[in-house]
């Protein structure tokens, strides 16, 4: 279990929870749109350095998906070649065998 930083306010300061677990709780999937003037592999590397757990690198459409907390998002937006960072949008067309649908 990684020790908590002394004197720093964490998201959940009172609970004794590992940093990994704390990160997991506040991480979500983000969708990063890139411009074509930089190789995606380089952008992905910079995203990792900024704290992203890169998931998919979709070469055809220039989109990278990954997990991170809100802190990394600000850093990501500043990376050269990144044109947009948005939360992953869940699509739901409704339950099976529905008469009416999207």
């Amino acid at each position, binding site marked *: 279990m990684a020790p908590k930083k002394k004197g720093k306010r964490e998201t959940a300061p009172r609970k004794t929870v590992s940093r990994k677990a704390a990160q997991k709780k506040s991480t979500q999937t983000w969708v990063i749109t890139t411009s074509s003037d930089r190789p995606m592999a380089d952008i992905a590397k910079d995203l990792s350095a900024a704290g992203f757990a890169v998931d998919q690198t979709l070469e055809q459409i220039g989109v990278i998906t990954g997990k991170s907390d809100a802190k990394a998002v600000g850093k990501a937006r500043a990376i050269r070649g990144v044109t947009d960072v948005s939360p*992953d949008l869940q*699509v739901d067309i409704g339950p099976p065998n529905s008469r009416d649908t*999207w």
Partner: protein
Amino acid sequence: MARKARKRAQATSGPATSSVDELLLAALERGDESLETGRYLITFKEGAVKEGAHALSATGLRSVDARDFAGQAFNIRDVAGADSLVLPEIGVAVVAAAALATRGMSVQAEIAADSPIQAIEPEYFVFAQSADDYLRGFARATEVIAKDLGQTAELKMPDHDQEEVQVIGATWGLIKCKVPPSPRSGAGIKVAVLDTGMDLGHPDFSGRMIVGQTFVGQPVQDLHSHGTHNIGTACGPQAPAGTTPRYGIGYKALIFAGKVLSNSGASVGGSVLAGMNWAIANRCAVIFTPLGSQAPVQAAYTAAGTAALNNGGVIIAPAGSSGSNPGAPANSPTIMSVASLDQNLSPSSFSNFGKIEIAAPGRDVLSSVPRPTRYGTRSGTSMAAAHVAGCAALWAETSPTLRGMNLWNKVLATAQPLPFPASRVGKGLVQAP
């Protein structure tokens, strides 16, 4: 799957006490469309249950009686492996087919006058469905049962415009889009459908080339129905089995079934984008994404739309059925947004409006659904977008230059104008070449 392997070992129907799922899977596997479960129901004459149950046991059948359980309530697992299951309150025994045959009993054989048995009949599956599907299933079941009895059944179905159209041999939607007279089939055109997958064993698609890919951690096999229905409209057969009218447009198109929605209908972390990426990598001319959410324009979807257009593809999406603004991905400027029309060619009440490129039939659309039901009727802008995807495949076939933006422009330019604002119907009703 281990379960499937076990079912293959038992080629015929299982014992009397198989679960419904086991019976359904077994029926699917032997290609049985008769709606029979494979078991038989023996009805005893009134007051003859005791004698009848005794007679069954006397033939050596391993028989279980509901009275053996407290309150006559039992779980199917409690009685595993029995040949017959006696239900004394209603005077019926459920018997496995194999057990029946080995004791010289059959549905056809005459029953002796002094026998405690009144009748032996096949057991049929029953399904819970939405109203129209239920009636259609019921009508089909009565046809099957009547045929067994050597009679013809006449069941009056409710009066629908669709019923009239069926007499002409195609769904109302195909007729309005001028599909039946078109010489085109979508031959050689790759059509990606990113949805809940496909019923890969559906009889109307046997022999069709279907490339499947999952992006949600579940097999491509459609257990939802949305994917099978949309693939049916866009790419279904020219001549479906039996008396079903033609419901599909690009009947020779090459189907790329991308499962980007799970069997519960939801996307899984970037699965839609992954599917779009895959379709573009495969250079599909038509990329049909019958899905969306009421959200503002998403940069990633717009990027995907651009990438498609740059690689000979067009992404086609339903505007959404919320009576509001088009949702994402349809609202992206690089993605074709489709509105829904009713049979009278007026915009459907549920159809979103605003940024709309084109419109198509979306109310009460008959198409394929997963077995054993096989056909079902749905309403939504997805159904409308499916008509556009199918027609786009036919247009793409007319010339190799009709790809990307050229195909987009052609489909819009050839639409039939309608007396409604562009915000409702775009350029109008999509038409086949």
